[in-house]
Structures are given as structure tokens and as C-alpha cells.
């Protein structure tokens, strides 16, 4: 595409360049995807029950919430931020969503809208704390995590929200053409966020702010507004995730999502996002989320005790990121 000539860099042909760039973009996803495929094949052999439509759909539905919230987290991480409040906010959204159904008789769609609204408000709060009050993201969202959990307990009186109509289960347990509804939603969210990040101005600004906030500011990007926008959008997705989680257990659970932030951050980083900003893609994150889910699923299928599961999850996290780093470095230094 470029008509500009290289100086020291030897050009090895436009096509190969284009190809290399794609590869370099996709290294992380490749690594994680390779791990995913290897694990998949191994599990297929190890357990006769693994490769069944039911189990695969189960895994899909089980991972839906994590994947959606991990997509939200990825956006935030790209801006060099972090959102520790996802677990609390998901719980808050799920509980409020359940309460408006139970106590105010809202229909499901309206309750979902309310849950998304709760997420958006929490995101707005995070965004304003970070941009207007200039509190670093880690601390801003740590506070929201604490306040959010407190609110959940206060409004529910620390009791789960039960007594919901069957229809409440649609998001989490419904199916469409035999595919779990939650999986369909996850796919839509993933495609949507991936598109947003890679093809739109909003996405471009997201990467720019994470890469060099001052440069973005000097380029005339209204960084306060955009950063807040990222947190709001992330909050909306977290609200959606919380609603699906509530729907899956047909109740609002005040304890939902404790230490969820670690899972979703791990998914994003396994998928190639950098906590120092500017890097990360949704494909990778989704693969990362499924990788973790598969480990957990496989461990139960093979009846591995929770104790060894924790060791295995740790090893897999190390291995996935190690190989990713290793391949990136190789790609960088050898071509």
C-alpha cells in the first residue's frame, strides 16, 4: 500500500509483509488458540463425555458471563486501566435486575435494561473518578468494588433475591435453534466489541489513550470523555454479564462475582492484552476465557480435586503467557 521506500529495512514483498503483520498481531491468539486446541483434543481422548453437544453447550453457557465481562475488561486494559469492580457491579446489576422483576413486576427486557443501566452508572462513576477526580484506575475501581459490594448487601439485606418467574431464566438458560441463548449473546458481544475496537474511531482512540495518554490529549482527543465512555461501555457489558449470571441461577445472588476480576483479567492477558496499555484484542480474550473454562471443565470431568485444579490452572496460566512472550520475542528478533 505504501509507496514509501525503506532504507535499511529490506522489503520482502508487500504480500509477505501484510501476512507477517497479521501473524504478529495474531501471535498471542495463536498461542492461546493452540493451547485451546491441544487441550480440546486431549480432553476428547481423556473423557468420553467431553465431546458431546451437551457438554460443549454447557461450557459455552458457563463461559458466557466470564467472556462478556472479559471483553469489557479488555477495553479497559487497552486504555492502560484496570477494572477491579466487575464482580461487585455484576452482582449489583443481577440483584437489582432480579429485584425489579420480583418487587415491581418488570418484564424481562425492562429488567435487563435496568441491569445494563446499573452497570452503566457504575462505569460512569469509575470513569469520572479516573478522569475528573484523577484517581488511578486501580484505586478508583477498588473503591467501587468495595462500595458496590456494600450496596448489594444493603439493598438485599444480604439475602438472595428469590421467587422469580421462570421467564427470568431466558437469558441464562434459554435456547435459540438449540444453541444456548447465552452463547449467542456472547458471540454478538464479542463481534461487536471487536468491530468497535478495530474498525471505529472510538476503538482507535481507545488504543491511542492506552499507548500514550498525553499524545492522545495533545492530538485533540477529548480524553476525559472518551475514557469515561470506555468505562461506561464496559460497565454496560458487566451489567449484561451480571444479568445473565443471575438468570442462570434464577435469582439475584449478593455474593456473586467475588474475585471474578482475577479470572477476567487473566483471560485478557492470556489472550495477549498488556496491562501497560495499548495492546489487546477481543479474539484473544475470548480464547483466553475459554481456555480457563476448559481447564475447569476438564478437571471436573476427570474428577481432579479442586486442590489439584488450582495448581493446574496456575500452571496453564504461566504456560500460556510464557509461550506467548517467547513467540513474540522470537518473532521480533528473528523475523
Amino acid at each position, binding site marked *: 500500500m505504501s509507496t514509501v521506500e525503506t532504507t535499511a529495512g529490506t522489503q520482502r514483498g508487500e504480500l509477505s509483509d501484510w501476512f507477517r503483520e497479521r501473524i504478529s498481531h495474531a501471535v498471542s491468539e495463536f498461542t492461546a488458540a493452540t493451547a485451546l486446541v491441544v487441550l480440546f483434543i486431549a480432553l476428547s481422548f481423556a*473423557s468420553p*463425555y*467431553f465431546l*458431546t453437544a*451437551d*457438554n460443549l453447550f*454447557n461450557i459455552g453457557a*458457563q463461559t458466557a*458471563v466470564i467472556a462478556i465481562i472479559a471483553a469489557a475488561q479488555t477495553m479497559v486494559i487497552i486504555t492502560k486501566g484496570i477494572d477491579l469492580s466487575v464482580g461487585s457491579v455484576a452482582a449489583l446489576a443481577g440483584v437489582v435486575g432480579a429485584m425489579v422483576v420480583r418487587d415491581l413486576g418488570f418484564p424481562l427486557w425492562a429488567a435487563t435494561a435496568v441491569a445494563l443501566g446499573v452497570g452503566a452508572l457504575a462505569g460512569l462513576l469509575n470513569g469520572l473518578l479516573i478522569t475528573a477526580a484523577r484517581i488511578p484506575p486501580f484505586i478508583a475501581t477498588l473503591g467501587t468494588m468495595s462500595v458496590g*459490594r456494600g450496596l448489594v*448487601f444493603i439493598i438485599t*439485606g*444480604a*439475602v*438472595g433475591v*428469590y*421467587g422469580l418467574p421462570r421467564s427470568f431464566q431466558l437469558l441464562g*438458560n434459554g435456547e435459540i435453534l438449540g444453541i444456548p441463548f447465552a452463547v449467542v449473546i456472547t458471540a454478538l458481544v464479542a463481534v461487536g466489541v471487536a468491530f468497535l475496537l478495530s474498525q471505529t474511531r472510538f476503538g482507535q482512540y481507545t488504543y491511542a489513550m492506552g499507548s500514550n495518554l498525553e499524545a492522545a490529549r495533545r492530538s485533540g482527543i477529548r480524553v476525559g470523555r472518551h475514557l469515561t465512555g470506555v468505562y461506561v461501555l464496559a460497565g454496560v457489558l458487566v451489567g449484561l454479564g451480571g444479568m445473565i*449470571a443471575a438468570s*442462570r*441461577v*434464577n*435469582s439475584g*445472588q*449478593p*455474593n*456473586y462475582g*467475588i474475585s471474578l476480576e482475577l479470572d477476567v483479567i487473566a483471560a485478557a492477558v492470556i489472550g495477549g492484552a498488556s496491562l501497560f496499555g495499548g495492546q489487546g484484542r477481543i479474539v484473544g480474550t475470548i480464547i483466553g476465557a475459554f481456555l480457563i473454562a476448559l481447564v*475447569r*471443565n476438564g478437571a*471436573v*470431568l*476427570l*474428577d481432579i*480435586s*479442586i*486442590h489439584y485444579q488450582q495448581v493446574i490452572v496456575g500452571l496453564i496460566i504461566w504456560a500460556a503467557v510464557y509461550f506467548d512472550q517467547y513467540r513474540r520475542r522470537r518473532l521480533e528478533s528473528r523475523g
Partner: protein
Amino acid sequence: GGVEVRDGGDGATKDAAGPLKLAVVPKAVGADYWNTVKAGAECAAQRAGNVTVQWDGVTTETDVEGQVNLIQNFVTKKVDGIVYAATDSRALAPATDQALGADIPVAMIDSGTSPQPSGVPLFATDNRASAVEAAKLLATELGPGNHDVALVEFQPGSQTNTERVDGFKSGLAQFPNLKLVGQQPSRSDVNEARRVTENILTANPNLAGIFAANEPSVLGAAQAIQAAGKSGKVVIIGWDAAPDEVAGLRNGQISALVVQNPFKMGYFGVDKMVKHLRDKAPLASADTGVTFVTKENIDSAEIKAVLEPSCANPPVQ
């Protein structure tokens, strides 16, 4: 058994109707079970009159050190009495001693300490024995023939969890026809319970029964079985009696529930403590009893009182 009153250092009896401030500390806040304990405690306080209950607890049952700190802080605050459930029997023993040393009487509910000082009563159910009973219920429900069963525990490493798991397993040992094919924790999270149960079901298509050891575990397991279309085909023996658990019992998803009497624990804790403080009544331990609720007995008055406790008709006989 009857335990003698600890001879308080000051020995002073509180003014018969004077205001009393009691700390009531659950293992953790945030479950239906503990809220029922709270209701019982508040009921007793209200009936006694001029008694305030300060209800405070850590957020997870695993925060043992947090609970030690909390008890210490209550000692500092010089409440008139402390009623609490120990997250860990041995770890909390020094905290109880500290309270006694500061002349603050202590009553334990749900879970005592080890050693349990003389003069400190325990109002509780025997978790272990009840879990043995749960295994028997499961065996009865499944009938003769070989069956695969699974266990959904909640928090490995926490004492209550250990007691229930040990009890269930030793109960199971009496039934060679039952084979434990899966054991996974829910971390007291309904979503997690549902997830592990789904995976256990996938791995064990012939699964015939599940014992789920606390409220979130039961709810998640029931959800998973229902979603797999196996309601009624997989027997669930649960623990506790949250409204949705009772509903599950009624519609056949759950076969039986091991139900303690948390209301009574809270009620006894406060009631006996107040009587001790005001009338120097001796503090004596009591078993608050356990009920095995099935579809058959669920509508009996006695069970109803346990399941739907209210201060108007407290299940505290």
C-alpha cells in the same frame, strides 16, 4: 450437657431492666441461614426488652483472623455479652478467653470453640452427626442396587465444611452400594455450584444422587439438574432451608433437606445471655436440634415453625 456458670470477676448482676448491649456475630454475613439466626437473636432481644443487638460479622467464613479481630474489638468496646459462631473452633478459643478475661460472658451458637471453656454454653446442632444422617437419607431415597453419588461441598478448609464432608463420607461408608464419583466445591456461590454440578453430570451420566452441603450449593445443584432435564431422576439431599430450597422440595427437585434451627440458635444465644446477665441464671449448652424435611412432613406444624420462623411463633421449645 449442663455446664456450670463461670463465676464472673465482678459478679455484679445487671440491673434487672437496665439496658444491655450484646454483640451477635455470625460466621459470615450474607446467607439466608445467618439472617435467620439474626431474626432469632432480635426476637429474643425484643422480648426481653431494653436489649440492643449489635450484629456484625466478616464477609466470608474463611476470614478467621478477621473474626478474631472483630471479637477483640467487641471486647474493647465492652459490650455486655458476646454471642457468636466460631469460624474455626481452635483459632477462636483465645478470643473467647480474652473476652472472659475482660469479664464479658460469651455464648457460642452454631459452632463452638475447642476447648470450650466451662461457663461458655453452646447452642448448636451436631453438623457431623447430621451429615451422617444425610447420607442415610440419600441411601434410603435411592434404595437397593448400586448407585453413583456426588458431593457438592462449599469451602474446603473451613471447619463446618470439613465436618459435613467427613460426616457424609463416614455415613456413606455404611452403604457399599453407593459410590462417590465426584466431589467439587461451590465456594458458596450458586453459579459455581451450578457449573460444577453440570460438569459432574456430564462426566457421570448415571449419577443417581447428590448431597449438597449448604444453601448455595443446593440451589446451584438443583438448577443444574433441572437444566439437564434430570429433575426427579437425580436425587438431591440438601442442607438448610432457604425459600427456594423449600420450593424445590415441594416440586420434587429436592428429596430431603437437613434443616437446623438457626432461629433457635440466635434466640437461645441472646435469651440465655440476657437471663444470665440480669438474673444470674446459669448458662447451659443446648442442642438446638436438626430436622429432616421431606415432601411428606413439610406441612406439619412443627416443621412449619422451623421453616418459617417468626417472633410471633418462635420455634424455640
